[in-house]
């Protein structure tokens, strides 16, 4: 990956190389050989991290993509050296303790990515950010037993909304200032919201949603206010500097807001109480069916928005991401229908319709792919 986040063969090879080295170091750390003094272990990682950084620096002028991979390796090795210190000094291995280490690592990797303007290091920072949020969520769930099963799910949902909103807001802010990192933030924001949206489009998820609004304001406010501020500022700045069309700015923000409104207000309007965990549509109450249909409608709107934006912006990675989620979505709905229509004749009919449908979809996908690639070229 180059500075601007474009994929090249050299970039792919050197990135995979850096990841393999990182995995090797993780194995080395996990072995924790007693024959090797702690000081020697720290020294090995300090030398390896410094060597990776120096290689990145030396290669920057003539081999930019390899240099980027070396900077990414520096960020990973540096993060691992924090975990090595935690291992040597027996810092407790709870979700909270590991999440604290990730937060420290996030500060370092994010700083490094901005100083070096390194796209791959930013990917490490975003990955660290996501991992930090997950560990922090799990830690909160474990600590707050009163949250219960529904509360735990609501917190996961809320944190994912916050992550998605934060990444989307950062994407808009970077776009406003024509910063190279804007496409990376956009891709990760899309990746996160697709994950969230896909989960919510399933029948089994519907029973968890009504519990969301019962969470305390202490948990809700900061998690929604920060991304809302980022999105608001990002939308305003990128619109005023004419770096994004009104349609793109509002459709992105509307989908994020749409999810929040659907999660928080919809169950109240439909009079839903939490706790209906069903897999078959026949077992769902009408209110839950309406909620399920609305989440599917938002998800389809999300797919169309991302495909449309990716095509106009000539961003193949975004279009492929949306298509991947489209395929997963269709597969999930198809399996859902098979589960709903039990009985030999119904299943036989569904399989035949599904088979024909897939062949037709394959034909149009191929046509669409060729058309998109031709447009991008």
């Amino acid at each position: 990956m180059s500075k601007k986040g474009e994929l090249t063969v050299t970039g792919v090879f050197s990135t995979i190389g850096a990841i393999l080295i990182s995995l090797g170091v993780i194995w080395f750390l996990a072995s924790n050989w007693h024959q090797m003094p702690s000081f020697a272990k720290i020294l090995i990682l300090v030398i390896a991290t410094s060597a990776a950084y120096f290689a990145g620096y030396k290669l920057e002028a003539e081999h930019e993509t390899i240099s980027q991979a070396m900077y990414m390796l520096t960020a990973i090795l540096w993060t691992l050296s924090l975990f090595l210190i935690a291992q040597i000094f027996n810092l407790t291995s709870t979700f909270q303790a590991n999440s604290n280490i990730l937060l420290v690592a996030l500060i370092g990797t994010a700083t490094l990515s901005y100083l070096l303007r390194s796209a791959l290091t930013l990917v490490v920072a975003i990955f660290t950010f996501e991992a930090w949020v997950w560990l922090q969520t799990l830690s909160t769930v474990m600590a707050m037993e009163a949250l219960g099963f529904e509360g735990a799910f609501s917190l996961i949902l809320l944190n994912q909304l916050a992550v998605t909103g934060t990444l989307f807001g950062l994407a808009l802010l970077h776009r406003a200032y024509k910063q190279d990192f804007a496409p990376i933030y956009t891709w990760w924001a899309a990746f996160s919201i697709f994950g969230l949206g896909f989960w919510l489009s399933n029948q089994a998820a519907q029973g968890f949603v009504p519990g969301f609004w019962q969470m305390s304001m202490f948990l809700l406010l900061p998690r929604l206010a920060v991304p809302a501020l980022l999105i608001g500022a990002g939308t305003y700045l990128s619109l005023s500097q004419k770096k994004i069309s009104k349609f793109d700015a509002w459709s992105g923000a509307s989908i994020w807001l749409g999810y929040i409104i659907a999660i928080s207000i919809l169950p109240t309007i439909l009079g839903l109480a939490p706790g209906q965990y069903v897999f078959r549509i026949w077992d769902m109450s009408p209110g839950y069916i309406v909620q399920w249909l609305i989440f599917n409608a938002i998800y389809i709107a999300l797919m169309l928005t991302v495909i449309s934006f990716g095509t106009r912006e000539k961003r193949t990675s975004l279009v492929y991401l949306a298509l991947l989620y489209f395929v997963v979505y269709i597969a999930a709905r198809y399996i859902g229908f098979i589960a709903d229509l039990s009985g030999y004749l119904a299943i036989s009919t569904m399989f035949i319709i599904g088979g024909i449908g897939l062949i037709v979809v394959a034909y149009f996908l191929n046509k669409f792919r060729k058309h998109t690639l031709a447009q991008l070229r």
Partner: protein
Amino acid sequence: MKKHLIAVIVLAVIFAGFLFYASWPTATGTGVELKLMPVDPFDLIRGQYLTLRYEIGTIPEQYNFTEGTTVYVVLKKDGDEIHRPASYSEQMPQAGEGRVVIRGTSHKDWIEYGIESYFIERGAVLKEQMTNVTAYVKILPDGRASIVELRKDHKPVEFEYREVKFTS
């Protein structure tokens, strides 16, 4: 060149700060021995470790702490050289002669001190039964603690290690 200098300084300062934070109790803390009972899980990055449950981790019936409260436990040395809790409080108690204070966080029915993991080599096993094992812990004046070693009869416990081969 300036950006590289700043990048190296930022990484080095955070690294050194974290190393300082993690090693400070071991380097300067007061040493105490605490009684414990272990089990052994695995951390994805840091490897195999023993989860330690401390005698001082149990909250006596007369105390009732809210989840997540910082708790200070005054430790006093018993005749067998083991430090045991003398009192529990939500405020930092006054330091006194022969008293050590350890800081923890209260949970439903136990207190977490941040010293519940002891990392060992992958595949290592204790040579003896894990009964009557103590942890030698160093504690800073503010109550933060760090494990130095596991002990049995006041001597470091011995582990049996696997033979290290290239394919092991």
